């Protein structure tokens, strides 16, 4: 059986439960790349043009790491998850980008484009076909995987609710999951805040069914499905947390506008914007985090 490689970057963090349980159900072996390191970023930087965003560089680094360790790599291509909405154009181009950078690599077909009638279900059935499974078998596996994903989302919701009830200082980390959970981006902040005994709430821990309702309060016209979730979770959490940290990678396209929207409509809630670049040292971030924490406490009184 061929081994499938899952690169730990970008869409992996949105869909990893779905993908992994799908492959588990079909009993296809898969491997994941390591957690991000400085070396991974260096590898990605070599493959990419300078202007690409940090998350993209990290993703390419993971692909570079994986390319000799597996037979196929899953590179998703997503145009729209919901009708009348779009996603960042990097996800549109990702498949072809990797195909052109590594002409010899075998890629798994995965194309979701609801606007042009390519649904997620079909994408998984086609993927199953490429791996040599019948339609019914891959459909069954997809259904199982989808159930597992739903359970995972419920779990996240519950943990979010639980965290809100604690009496510790609460900080909302707002950003794309691939930035928040990355070892080189979000985990650095997580580690620092954990040391200071602060409860951390992730932006993806809000109930998914409330997204459309909450986003109307801040920006009704936003058309990026993923940034819609961020805006909604800011509105959802802003009154119950002490502060918000926006985490974004430089130069993220959608974030550049939605962050501006959050900063302009934040009202009285306290917001810190941290932009990550491949040159960042921990010290610069920690200085800013320290002053933010001091501000949350009400300033330093000497």
């Amino acid at each position: 059986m061929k081994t499938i490689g899952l690169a730990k970057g970008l869409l992996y963090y949105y869909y990893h439960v779905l993908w992994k349980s799908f492959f588990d159900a079909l009993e296809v072996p898969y491997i994941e790349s390591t957690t991000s390191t400085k070396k991974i970023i260096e590898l990605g930087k070599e493959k990419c043009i300078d202007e690409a965003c940090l998350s993209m560089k990290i993703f390419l680094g993971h692909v570079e790491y994986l390319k000799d360790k597996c037979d196929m790599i899953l590179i998703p291509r997503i145009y729209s998850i919901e009708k009348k909405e779009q996603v960042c154009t990097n996800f549109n181009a990702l498949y072809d980008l990797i195909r052109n950078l590594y002409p010899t690599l075998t890629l798994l077909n995965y194309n979701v484009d609801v606007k042009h009638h390519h649904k997620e279900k079909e994408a998984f059935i086609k993927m199953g076909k490429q791996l040599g499974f019948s339609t019914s078998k891959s459909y069954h596996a997809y259904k199982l995987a989808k159930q597992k994903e739903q359970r995972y989302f419920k779990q996240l919701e519950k943990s979010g609710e639980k965290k809100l009830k604690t009496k510790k200082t609460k900080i909302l980390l707002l950003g794309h999951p691939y930035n928040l959970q990355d070892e080189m981006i979000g985990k650095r902040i997580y580690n620092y805040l954990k040391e200071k005994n602060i409860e951390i709430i992730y932006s993806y821990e809000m109930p998914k069914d409330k997204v459309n309702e909450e986003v109307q309060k801040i920006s009704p016209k936003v058309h990026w499905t993923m940034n819609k979730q961020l805006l909604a979770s800011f509105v959802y959490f802003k009154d119950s947390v002490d502060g918000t940290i926006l985490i974004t990678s430089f130069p993220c396209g959608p974030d550049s506008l939605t962050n501006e929207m959050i900063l302009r409509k934040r009202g009285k809630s306290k917001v810190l914007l941290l932009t990550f670049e491949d040159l960042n040292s921990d010290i610069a971030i920690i200085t800013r985090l320290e002053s933010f924490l001091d501000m949350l406490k009400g300033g330093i009184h000497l």
Partner: protein
Amino acid sequence: MRQILAFPQLGDYQYPIRRLLMDMTHLEVLEVPPITKKTIALGSKYSPDSVCIPFKYNLGNFIEALEKGANVLFQAGGGCRYRYYAEVQETILRDLGYDFTFVQIIGRDHLRFKELYHIFKGFNKNLTRKNFLKNLIFAFFYITYLDKIDEYIRHRVGFEVEKNSFLKLKKAFIQKCNKAKNIFSLTKIYYQYKKKCKKIKINKPKNCLKVGFIGELYTAMERYSNYNLEKTLASYHIEIKRFTNLTYLLWKKALFLPIMKRKVKKYCKYTLGADGMDNVYRVLWLKKHGYDGIIHTKPTGCTPEIGAIPILMRAAQEEKMPIIFFSFDEQSGMEGINTRLEAFYDLLTLKKEAQK
């Protein structure tokens, strides 16, 4: 209060758009002052840092228009970040303390005539469906003719004997078109000027340098944002082929998409977002039609083009086409661009001579 309309600049398209708005609403439409250093300085002062350049230009246009007394602002929309411009710009301008109405023409993913009709009906109660269609078709023809004349000029402008003769011709053409009463007189003017355009003396050698101009749409269409790159190229006696214009974006693109998809199968399986795949197709087209080089322009941080550039590089390498990438931001230094352009020009001439 008297309503004065304004919209952001986009090259010479300000004339057909202005005419369309005037015909539809019968209100005063402000002539937005041409883009200067002040415009971009104003725009980038109030914009988020890492946003793409068209946002800053548009915001600068809006601020200048508001200062001049406009109180109804028009913004379009489309794909990528452009669709979200309207809302953020409205928020920024309101935070600055201006009082205005903001109208987004294309609120969803593509133009809907019914939506457009209701927007204009709100301004002009006497607007009938017939008039609406008539005005729309007029604007459509105006844009098409403008693009066609532009194409003729672009083929010849580098070799004109008398300086600025084409510039004068285009100015006269636009002035006449603005006064045209209906589509028939517009068509007449177009053919008249097409003839005139062909009569202007040029000194074009048979194997002149030919360069294709590809890239992101705003930097291709707005002269100021690409530092008059086309003019500089013309001064080197180069024939220019530019693909992106409003005609292309409005209807040609949808028509060509299936053909393009088939032609670029080697490099792209799917569309790349915005004009990404089109640019890959253009590289192949330019090679096929014997062009010497390609100039690619984009604003700094343009996500779809960043995704497309590695593919473009590979396509250009395999087709053996020289390609140069320009990334424009709000800085207004010309020298860096001119130096690179000169080096590119030298490379093309050397290559051409070696072929002989």
